[in-house]
């Protein structure tokens, strides 16, 4: 499996239907973007999972540091007023 050690990793995002957003579904190995799209098609859309594919080099993803989780995410915990749950919805509005 020496090929896999030299083929870079790509993150795969699939749009399930028109109008929906692309969702991360996993990763594959490929030597370039063209091959990454083909591999993503062959690995992740075999059961009609999608209508569009995005691929991005895994090394191009910038991730937050798990060690920073406390300062990044915990302050949001007690800010319930940020959820739009305090509005009274008029009866005339059926679908919201």
């Amino acid at each position, binding site marked *: 499996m020496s090929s896999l050690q030299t083929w870079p990793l790509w993150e795969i995002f699939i749009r399930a239907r028109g109008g929906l957003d692309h969702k991360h579904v996993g990763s594959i*190995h490929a030597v370039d973007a063209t091959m990454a799209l083909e591999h993503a098609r062959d*690995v992740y859309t*075999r059961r009609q999972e999608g209508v569009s594919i995005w691929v991005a080099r895994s090394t191009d993803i910038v991730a937050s540091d798990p060690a920073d989780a406390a300062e990044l995410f915990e302050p949001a915990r007690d800010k319930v007023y940020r959820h739009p749950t305090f509005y009274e919805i008029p009866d005339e509005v059926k679908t919201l």
Partner: protein
Amino acid sequence: MSEALRIDYVLQLADSSLILGQRLGEWVGHAPALEEDLGLANTALDLIGQARLLLTYAGELEGRGRDEDQLAFLREEAEFRNVTLVEQPNRDFGHTIVRQVLFDAYQLELFERLQSSSDGRLAAVAAKAVKETRYHLRYSGSWLVRLGDGTGESHARVQDALERLWPFTRELFEEQPADLEICARGIGPGLAELRQAWSARLDALLTEATLTRPADAPYRWFGRRGVHSEHLGYILAEMQYLQRAHPGARW
């Protein structure tokens, strides 16, 4: 024209897809990478799907009550009508890719034309299959370019595979009296015109892959008439074993 010619033509299309699908299936679990494993398996399943539709149709035309399974699993070697190219062994990945490119380019030109066949069933099968085949050629063609225009070793291997497989392409376009009649009735395309289109498509790919097109050589096999190379018997032994050992066995 008797219906026998039409049945034979449908079987040629069906068997080429079936046997190549079976061949590609041998890669499952052995491909160079997981992604290629799935890629080859996807192509194999597309081909077997085409074969199922075509064999079912051939069985109906024949009117002897044989279904797709009986035609696939209970016919003898000499009754198979696949082109000899598709029964050639996989050998290495590059060899498999070359065989695939040669066949995909042929099948793409064929299915594009069969969409306007006077035979409505064939036209419908072709309309479905042509989309699959476009992807097959995209897959195999891009690998041909990568390997041909790759390292010294990959180039040498695919050029070698091309030399080895090239003689088998002659059969694809060798016009028989039956082919002329199929063409005259608007069932299938003329083989001379098909060859030209195939050739142009292939030349473009070979140039991009920095590969040299081999010279045409005399040809000895004719799978479409049931005269096969030594490899088909082994494929059938494996493919048909279960139905022959346990007749009527179901999944």
